[in-house]
């Protein structure tokens, strides 16, 4: 292959795994592996796989269609999704705000960053029982827990993004007469977009993990609650159906968001 492929714009390296020659065989192999697992699961003798513990793919599919028809899955998925979206918004807003402050005011950065690092290392799931006492079970408790988990991704993205801005750029805006807020709006925030997209890539799956964890621990709604109640009445088909649908929602949300933010010039 020549050193410069004319199909690739000069300022962009070809993305790994997207070379035309590689794509088809890789996808075929992936589909093949999934098909083999599903067939083995479906046709394994009862002595090896106990139906009452693991169910079968066809039974899980039947359960999914039954719940889709009755609207149970949509309703529970919407509940989980609301907690995820609200949590991302709240955690994102507080995280970006805090990160920008800490990243642009050095004294404030030295004050805020150590306690944030300390809290980041703490297993947040330990807070759920406390949040249940404070906020009860329901959407607010779930949202606050999700926001708390994703806060750190946004905080560090904007903190590092702001600190990565070369001094020459901020000096240029200072001498042009820019206020602190103008410097944040015109320089630090746009310079952090690349970092924030990377943070978002991690934050979305973690938001689903947090919302569903909160539901599994204690909730009367959501896909997490559906998994838990199905398991507690020995209904593996229901449990897998809920998990599969959760996977579908989580992957679609991540995919959609990352596609929208995929092509970007916003970094320094």
């Amino acid at each position, binding site marked *: 292959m020549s050193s410069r492929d004319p199909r690739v714009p000069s300022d962009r390296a070809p993305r790994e795994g997207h070379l035309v020659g590689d794509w088809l065989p890789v996808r075929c192999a992936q589909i093949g592996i999934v098909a083999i697992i599903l067939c083995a699961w479906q046709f394994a003798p009862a002595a090896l796989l106990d139906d009452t513990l693991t169910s079968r793919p066809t039974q899980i599919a039947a359960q999914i269609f039954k719940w889709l028809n009755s609207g149970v899955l949509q309703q529970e998925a919407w509940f989980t999704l609301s907690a995820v979206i609200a949590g991302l918004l709240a955690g994102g807003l507080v995280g970006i705000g805090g990160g920008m402050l800490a990243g642009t005011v050095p004294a404030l950065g030295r004050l805020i960053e150590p306690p944030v690092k300390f809290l980041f290392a703490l297993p947040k799931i330990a807070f759920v029982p406390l949040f249940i006492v404070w906020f009860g079970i329901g959407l607010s408790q779930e949202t606050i827990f999700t926001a708390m988990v994703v806060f750190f991704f946004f905080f560090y993205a904007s903190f590092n993004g702001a600190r990565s801005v070369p001094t020459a750029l901020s000096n240029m805006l200072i001498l*042009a007469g820019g206020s602190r807020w103008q410097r944040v709006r015109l320089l630090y925030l*746009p310079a952090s977009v690349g970092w924030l997209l990377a943070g978002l890539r991690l934050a979305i799956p973690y938001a689903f993990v947090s919302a569903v964890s909160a539901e599994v621990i204690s909730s009367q709604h959501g896909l997490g609650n559906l998994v838990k109640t199905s398991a507690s009445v020995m209904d593996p088909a229901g449990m897998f159906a809920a998990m599969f649908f959760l996977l579908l929602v989580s992957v679609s949300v991540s995919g959609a968001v990352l596609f929208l933010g995929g092509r970007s010039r916003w970094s320094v």
Partner: protein
Amino acid sequence: MNAAIMNATTASLVPEKLERLESHRRPVAIAFDQVSKGFRSHGRFTQALENVSLEVRRGEFVSLVGPSGSGKTTLLNLAAGLLRPDAGQLEYGGAKLTGPNTQVGYLTQDDALLPWRSVLANVALPLEVRGVGRPERLEAARRIIARVGLKDFEKHFPAQLSGGMRKRVALARTLVYRPETLLLDEPFSALDAQTRLVIQKQLRELVSELGLTVLLVTHDLHEAIALSDTIVVFSRRPARILETLEVPQPAGRDILRPRAADEQIYLKIWDLLADDSDLPDA
């Protein structure tokens, strides 16, 4: 575009004409009086400048030369109001400098262009910051972009331009808000020799046309001699002024053509710098 319009656009770039006064009778733009500045890093204190006194008159082109790390950049940062002196007085335009100096344009080796903004949006940025309306600021940006010869590249992004073009965009952005003074910190050192000459010529023309005061830090003695009215030679750290040299610059001189007198100045600076260094004589 016809000649009348061309003249009108160039003329409107020129601020009030600086009267053709004898250089020593022009008002003082920047005055350093016994200025000292040091830095503390990793628990060690380094004295960058010690008792430096320097007067730069309006419309004067002053180059600062001297060994690396001798505090010349510190001097520019002080003049920009980005740093405060530890001791001594610093006046700009007759008044004590107390904060960022918005009368100056600062150009460094780093282009400091925003990669997500087009050439036009980058150049218009200082006016946007100063609250100039969109049509006015784009008009002013277009005019100065044309003046530095990048008319056809307004919609390009910095990553699509060569180093020399990016430097000219940075120069246009610095000039778009009509600063009185340019602070230049080795602005052309990363460019190839040919591009550097072209930009130096363009800079000298713009400086005369706009009546700008310039403080240029450079390691290139030829650059200093070709461009400046005055060359200030600094010692090793902590920087003191070793000597101030006048360079005659007759009107209409082509900076690309060196003269016999330049060689004398070159050797004189070189001797000053060699005397100040620890290096044994070759």
